């Protein structure tokens, strides 16, 4: 196994093209678990820690471009938290301080777990994933980027370079169910924004992200609509029945919060 450590984005993209078998590693909070437990056997690792371009975020057009290497810790406070409160709330629920200092938004999308905490708020925000290769860059809506459980639309020569999203400008929130407040993989989770259109997306309740929308006038039936759109499974963290019920309750609470 080799560790490839590019010092710039252009070098990273050239290495990605030359070594499509290399597994990208940024914060390492998912990749290292696979290595430590001898479950992942990548032919090589592409260490993105030294690519400063991936760590940057900035206003872009009428929204923001958040580099793939921006951490949960950076999203849960400061200017990004003020613009994207639901994403900030979701970031605060990730793991522990140690995990939030290392884990990144790009890594969460690359892993593409149904339990990925950043994914519901990104789906509600209509965020797009910027995927870049030596051939150029393209943008894919988050809901299309995640193609299945831990599967994504990234081509073999592409890296996730950034997320593009606009502040909703309306009340929004994120809720998560788990056995304790820290170090929890979501039993289920939910992001909601409540403008003229109600928008919701859940986590740990479908193999791929699902966006549920309704006119604001349908707030009374929206919780049932969101629960009906879920396709949860029974697993070690909870039952499908519990998850569907919890999503209805979470949607009701989220609307109480947002419409108050």
């Amino acid at each position, binding site marked *: 196994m080799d*560790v490839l450590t590019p010092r710039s984005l252009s070098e990273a993209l050239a290495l990605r093209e030359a070594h499509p078998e290399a597994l990208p590693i940024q*914060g390492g909070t998912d990749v*290292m*678990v696979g290595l430590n437990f001898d479950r992942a056997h*990548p032919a090589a690792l592409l260490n993105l820690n030294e690519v400063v371009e991936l760590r940057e975020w900035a206003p872009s057009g009428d929204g923001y471009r958040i580099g793939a290497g921006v951490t949960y810790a950076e999203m849960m406070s400061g200017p990004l938290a003020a613009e994207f409160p639901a994403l900030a709330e979701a970031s605060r629920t990730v793991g*522990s301080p*140690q995990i939030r*200092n290392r884990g990144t938004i790009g890594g969460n999308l690359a892993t593409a777990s149904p339990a990925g905490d950043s994914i519901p708020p990104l789906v509600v925000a209509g965020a797009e994933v910027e995927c870049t290769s030596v051939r150029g860059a393209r943008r894919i809506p988050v809901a299309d980027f995640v193609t299945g459980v831990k599967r994504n639309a990234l081509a073999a020569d592409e890296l996730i370079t950034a997320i593009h999203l606009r502040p909703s400008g309306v009340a929004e929130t994120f809720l998560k169910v788990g056995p304790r407040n*820290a170090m929890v993989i979501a039993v289920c989770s939910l992001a909601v924004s409540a403008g003229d259109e109600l928008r919701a997306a859940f986590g740990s309740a479908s193999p791929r992200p699902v966006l549920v929308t309704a006119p604001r006038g349908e707030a009374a039936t929206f919780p049932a609509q969101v629960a009906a759109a879920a396709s949860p499974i029974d697993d070690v963290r909870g039952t499908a029945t519990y998850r569907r019920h919890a999503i209805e309750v979470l949607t009701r609470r989220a609307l109480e919060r947002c419409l108050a």
Partner: protein
Amino acid sequence: MRINVRVNGVPSEADCWEGESLLFALREKLGFPGSKNACEQGECGSCSVLLDGVLVCACLVLAAQADGHDVTTIEGLGTEEELHPVQAAFVETGAVQCGFCTPGLVVAAADLLERVSDPSDDEIREALSGNLCRCTGYVKIFEAVRLAASRGAGA
């Protein structure tokens, strides 16, 4: 592969397997066994170290990612002759039982007090939420952090 890491201010070199964690390199190659190896998945916090001043789980950092960077371990916080104020407070309040989680908790608590000199209980709880202790039940650990804060450990 060869990595160069500045550990507790001292330039250090080690030969590492490419998939090896910083924790393994610290304990088995670089001679810093203070950081403990338990869950190997970021759940327990017993391997907490500072990487370029940022609190991380050393088990979730690829050793190669630390090449050219600064790492502070529990060994860098105090000496046997002169304990770090957080270490002294842990001893005085009896916040240590089996001691396995203690290095990680001391590093996390010292990191908190560097940022927040007079933390509330909620801030202590949040800052230590990634560090598990299976003996003391946390009451004495909280006492230790409050004692260290009252002595200006973060000043």
